[in-house]
């Protein structure tokens, strides 16, 4: 009997450890509902997520770059802004986007994406490859991120 429990315990341990590692390395495909009324499936697509809020001045300053990236992205790439939802409302976010003519897909998060990606600061930039690996994560819009985003856009294609 002891051996039976020991085996179950070991399997459980292995399973949980494996899941923990898996969760830290691979992101399961996301289904994102935007405030523009569209549903985005990230499966087998490169996905760039920017977590932000209207009260975050760094985030707002970077928005023109996000729009430019969204405008020039390749077909097999998603560019999605995720409003973190803290001290925000979907109406406020819509007003903001409309005021500055921003058209990039935007998700109003109920806390689940913030939790899933362990977001504790704004802005946070994340790029996920087709396999679900996080290939970039940074707080600000760095030169490294700009170079990676260039590769995701039609501009990047000209450089290849």
């Amino acid at each position: 009997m002891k051996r039976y429990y020991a085996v179950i315990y070991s399997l459980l341990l292995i399973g949980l450890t494996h899941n923990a590692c898996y969760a830290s390395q691979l992101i399961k495909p996301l289904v994102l509902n935007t405030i523009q009324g569209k549903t985005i499936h990230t499966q087998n697509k490169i996905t760039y997520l920017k977590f932000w809020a209207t009260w975050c001045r760094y985030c707002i300053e970077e928005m023109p770059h996000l729009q430019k990236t969204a405008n020039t992205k390749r077909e097999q790439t998603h560019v999605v802004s995720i409003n973190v939802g803290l001290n925000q409302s979907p109406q406020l976010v819509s007003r903001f986007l409309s005021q500055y003519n921003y058209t990039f897909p935007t998700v109003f998060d109920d806390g689940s994406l913030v939790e899933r990606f362990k977001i504790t600061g704004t802005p946070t930039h994340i790029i996920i490859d087709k396999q679900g690996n996080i290939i970039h994560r940074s707080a600000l819009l760095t030169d490294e991120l700009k170079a990676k985003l260039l590769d995701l856009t039609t501009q990047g294609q000209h450089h290849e």
Partner: protein
Amino acid sequence: MNKPLLWFLFNILMICNIKITEAQTAMAHEEVVFIDIWSEYAALSNLPKSHLPRRYFQIDMNVNTADLAHFIQAYPQFKTLKIDKNNRLAKHFSVQKTPTVISLKQGEVVNTYTPNTLVSLPNKEHLAITAEQLRLTSLQNSHFDFNQSDKHPARLLFFSDALCPKHHLPDCVEKIKAHNQLDLNSKIEKLTIIKPFYVSIADAHTYKQQFYITHPVIFDKHNVLFRQFSVSELPYWILLNNQGNVMYRGNTPPSKTLLHTPHYSNTHSD
């Protein structure tokens, strides 16, 4: 129940890291208050008076323990303030706004209070830059004109942030030291430009003292230099020649070779 089974269950609990929430172990009747210190700095929340003991929690966004200690020092009434790690409690109580006051009786929510606050849209970040805004004065009271048409010496600008050290400013302390130690051609002005977000000119003075800076430090009040040179990464260097053209930009200092290239100086005689 036999011992192996108990051991098995105990380990499951340990592995899954199941914790009884703080709310469940709370006192019989108390209030849990969620705040955001950055909003509180801007204007202290007018919370309803209460005779119940209060525990304050900071939303886990853009803060660290040093920020909390600084805030408590300024506002001792929040001495019980803790960071709600990964927003676990906030999620438990479905809190998405601050401040929120939750009254608990033996762990059960009996009342939730969130004042109606009007959140305004940001309006400063996309305004056009004026020539006047590009004329700046350093903390040491020297004047600098960044209008491209104006003749000025070559300049090495170090874009920094008085919030250093913070997670969004990687290696900022080391980079500040590196900038201080840079040996420049005497014809190149060494400057530090301070981001104005969430800090005041007083914080810029503190930064200057804290990091022993002897060269001119400019508080970029309207954030115009950051925008003019599209600097979104911090800390960051930009080298301008005497025509105001960008000769180098990057998150590491320019090379010695580059810094000693003659055409960065005022004259072409060197």
